[in-house]
């Protein structure tokens, strides 16, 4: 399984980061790249609950492939969503199930964002993603 192109790009960018300030800037830049959601999509049906910020996650399916879109009202969380989607977007369902996302955030130097004390919602997003991926077509 080779890394998606966007993921390779994220890895290179975050690996070159020196310090928290650069990492924060980069996260915010990645967050700007998320395709915006329409008002009709920012609805309760797509809310990921269990986050203190507002987060929406939408899965669209084409054949065996899943295409995710996501957004949040918090900027750094949008960045975290962007690097998450970079890793998983467009993968076949079977492959999605086997991606080690904790390791992915580790590689980016963002592992603390997944710690259990965090209420930023990234953990809830991962769980929601697995649920959406597991749903029958």
């Amino acid at each position, binding site marked *: 399984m080779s890394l998606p192109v966007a993921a390779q790009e994220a890895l290179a960018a975050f690996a070159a980061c020196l310090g928290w300030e650069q990492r924060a800037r980069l996260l915010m830049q990645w967050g700007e790249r998320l395709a915006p959601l329409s008002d009709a999509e920012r609805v309760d049906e797509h809310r990921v609950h269990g986050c203190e*910020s507002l987060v929406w996650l939408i899965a669209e399916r084409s054949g065996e492939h899943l295409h995710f879109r996501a957004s949040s*009202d918090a900027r750094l*969380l949008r960045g975290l969503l962007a690097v998450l989607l970079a890793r998983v977007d467009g993968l076949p369902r079977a492959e999605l199930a086997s991606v080690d996302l904790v390791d992915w955030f580790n590689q980016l130097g963002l592992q603390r964002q997944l710690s259990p004390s965090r209420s930023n919602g990234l953990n809830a997003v991962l769980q929601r993603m697995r649920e959406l991926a597991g749903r029958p077509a």
Partner: protein
Amino acid sequence: MSLISPWRADFPGILALAAEGQTYLDSAATAQKPQAVLDALLGYLASGVANVHRAQHLPGERATRAFEATRSQAAQWLNAARAEEIIFTRGTTESLNLLAYGLEHLLQPGEQIVISALEHHANLLPWQQLAKRRGLELVILPLDDAGSIDLQQAARLIGTRTRLLAVSQLSNVLGRWQPLDELLALARTQGALTVVDGAQGAVHGRHDLQALGCDFYVCSSHKLYGPDGVGLLYGRREALGQLQHWQFGGEMVLDADYHEARFRPAPLGFEAGTPAVSAVIALGAALNWLNGLDHAAVARHEATLHAELLAGLQARDGVRLLGQPQLALASFCVDGVHNADLAHLLSEQGIAVRAGHHCAMPLMKGLGLSGAIRVSLGLYNDGEDLQRFFSALDNALELLR
């Protein structure tokens, strides 16, 4: 010159965190412990433990004596009339749940429980659920703009159907002393029982519960520089006598048959099972340590720190305080900045503050906020802690704006 805390060196935890690059400004969530507490814990555990109130042997006698000594110290600390008015629980939350079950039998459908709009979930949900169980009305006292319970409205809302008033002494979000004397008087006029949530208030200054005249007062050891897993429930003797037993098991029973049992009165009747013996003993050490301090000096230090915190926050563009905090803490948000983003960048810089709803969701909703950042102070914090916080705040805001 930077403000120095003469007590900082007594707290290995704050020094260890500082050495790790962490600035701890979350003492309203839980406080670091003085060396005396660590010594008491290790001293008890290392010299041979035993269960309390049940054994004739020497270790059991020693443990029971130390355990009961904390009860007397807590009674003195709060100026209770007698040691038997102190029940050990697991914390404020358990104390309040105990009350919500123990007083249930006194409340009839249609009667009212009165709380305020600023209550911590621990002083809201047990009453809310009790109201649902018994068909009671839960009345919420509104706040004024400063963040105090509005006394005019309280005088209107506390009425003949009010059977119980449960309010915080010091808000964990707004940092203001609540007008307890007036509120308790209003409740007493109606013959209602009174409960004071002292989780935050107990940590600042000394309180005389006989003078205050509440029926019940609750607090947590872990916020009062003691170990976690222990809380206090003070009850005036007459009030304690009205409590129904709620948890059943070892040591709370006088006499048991297979189908019937008789229970002990307070305090032991409300301490079913093995209590947190080591933590209770170490709480005694915390109270002892606190007793040895110059209280005027502590109050001065805390007030100076708090004034510096407020001045620094108010000097920054776009920072909006929640209410008008008087001591111990300040909650704020920044115009145009999401508090989750700010929290993220503060924690990246080793600033340990709390972000979110602070276990007071209805209060935050009422203020129209999804969350806020709270900086809270302990007596070990100093001027440098605040400077590190402010420079981290400036860095974060520069990045975000």
